[in-house]
């Protein structure tokens, strides 16, 4: 069976891709083996360095889901304000959008809908 998945511009072969990934991981593993094995676990050598300050507990460092993309959503505040206003939770608004889109489609077909 031909494993090449043909696309408009060429082809895609997942098995070949997996082989490349496997070789890359193997090289990475070999490089890792050449690292320094003499570090001491549980000492400052394995702690993150934060300008000399002691790191906080793992619980305190966990960023909550609501805050993860804070920068992204803040920079698009206007866009998100519009979307939030759109999502009222009121079923009458749901039906209003449905009727509106129906009107737009009918208008589009009256203007450009000839066979």
């Amino acid at each position: 069976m031909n494993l090449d998945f043909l696309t408009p511009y060429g082809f895609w072969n997942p098995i070949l891709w997996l082989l490349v990934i496997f070789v890359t991981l193997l090289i990475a593993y070999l490089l890792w083996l050449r690292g320094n094995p003499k570090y001491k676990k549980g000492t400052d050598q394995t702690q993150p360095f934060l300008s000399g300050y002691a790191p906080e507990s793992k619980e305190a460092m966990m960023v909550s889901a609501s805050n993860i993309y804070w920068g992204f959503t803040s920079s698009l505040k206007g866009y998100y304000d519009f979307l939030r206003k759109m999502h009222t939770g009121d079923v009458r608004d749901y039906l209003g959008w449905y009727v509106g889109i129906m009107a737009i489609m009918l208008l589009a077909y009256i203007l450009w809908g000839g066979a």
Partner: protein
Amino acid sequence: MMWDTLVQHSPALIIAIPLLAAFATPLISKVSVRARNIWVILALALTEIFVVILLYQVYNFGTQVYVFGANPYDLTVPVDSRGIPIRIIFVVDAMSIFMAFTAATVALAGAIYSVSCEAEQTGQDKYYSLLLLMTVGMLGMMLTGDLFNFFVFLEINSLASAALVAYRVDRGVAVEAAFKYAIISSLGGLMVLFAIGILYGQYDALNMAMVAYRMQATGFGNLDKIAMALFTVTLAMKAGAIPMHFWVPDGYGKAPGAISAMLVTASQASLYGLFRVNFTVFGLAANTYTLGWFLIILGVLSMFVGVTMALIQHDIKRLMAYHAISQTGYMLLGVGVGLATLGTAAFSQYGFAAMEGGIFHIINHAMYKGLLFLTAGAIIYRVGTSDLDKMGGLGHSMKYTMIFFMIGALAIAGIPPFNGFASKLLIYESVYQFNPILSILAMIVSILTLASFVKVFHSAFMGPKKHDVKEVPVPMLIGMGILTFFIILFGLFPNIAMQYLVAPAASALSDPVGYITRVLGGVVP
């Protein structure tokens, strides 16, 4: 002989088995819970087997026609019917059976998953009856060649789905979500019935092939335009296209995990109806360029608004529901490009490939989004909350669920070698030739999808342990495993899906003349 009879009647059996099982389920529940669970799973497994048999028949022998009450079973136009196909006819072409295979697989996985996930809930006899009726509704919508019959199955699907959304009650919140879904579905069903009435009044027929034949002969009038708008906009709303998507996060978010997965295929049944009606019934007479662009615009809006809304959610089910909307956008985009280029030289250059991409994405989406909803259900089953802010560290104790989630998340983000990559690659490359901006937008949406699922992975599975929980029971893992199998299979060997499922489906959908000829035969009314 017996085998031949079963094969001949397989289109009817695919509906009859889950329908009979649905009504018998409450009775078997009285005998024992274990017997009831086995009964439901056996019924859905048998349905899946008949779907696969029919898939084999369609692949090898072309479109299958089944006329209820006729002798022989494929007599579409009786001699005394004045050339009109009067009976209910199932027309199973490659597109129909492709959809049926998708829906039956997810339903089977969902039922197995439910055995453990819903074990502590009350009213399970009703739950399984409704689950089977929902399956009947979906499969009926996909197999029928009759417009009124399509409406009947749409209603069965909608009513069963709404009742299942309300199943957990959840202090009334789930009931409110179901109520909204029921209102939207009722109005949508009414509009579809209105459109069918318009077509019946004009063409004196309910059979899709007959209506298409007569519409082409008489020309595309203003009433046809109204009927087409009613069908297109209503079914787009039922599929969850933006800006008519508002019921989706409510409904998907509050339904039990397995039902959320099945709601994906229920929405896809409406998407199938949208494609079927626009290609087969209106495709020969209407201006498909305008119609194609309408679907493309809905698709792009759904992709972008869906994913950006998902990014700000912290309820795992609502987040995934917005992604379901976003992924529906890819299907609308791919098939919309096919529709916009239908009948032109561009169709063979890239339009057909775009359609293949959109259709391939349907089955891929059903598998990975189904899996993701099942993983979300597994998390909620153990943790008791759907709020990502209250989760964390589940990777320590729910390792299999985490692996399933990772596979689903990578697949939806279009990361190779999972199935989402193959269909998205087809869409990117073919849509780029139609309009590069649309293709670039689709790629940006994939990046944002990955970002969103990184957030879920980080919040639910990474970090210190917040909950002392254990892995979910085996039936839930089996349900997730079935869908994972197809994600990996279609990811590593996309040619299998392309050769046996997708390419025949795209060919069948884009060939309304072949459909009409198969149903009406040599009879010219």
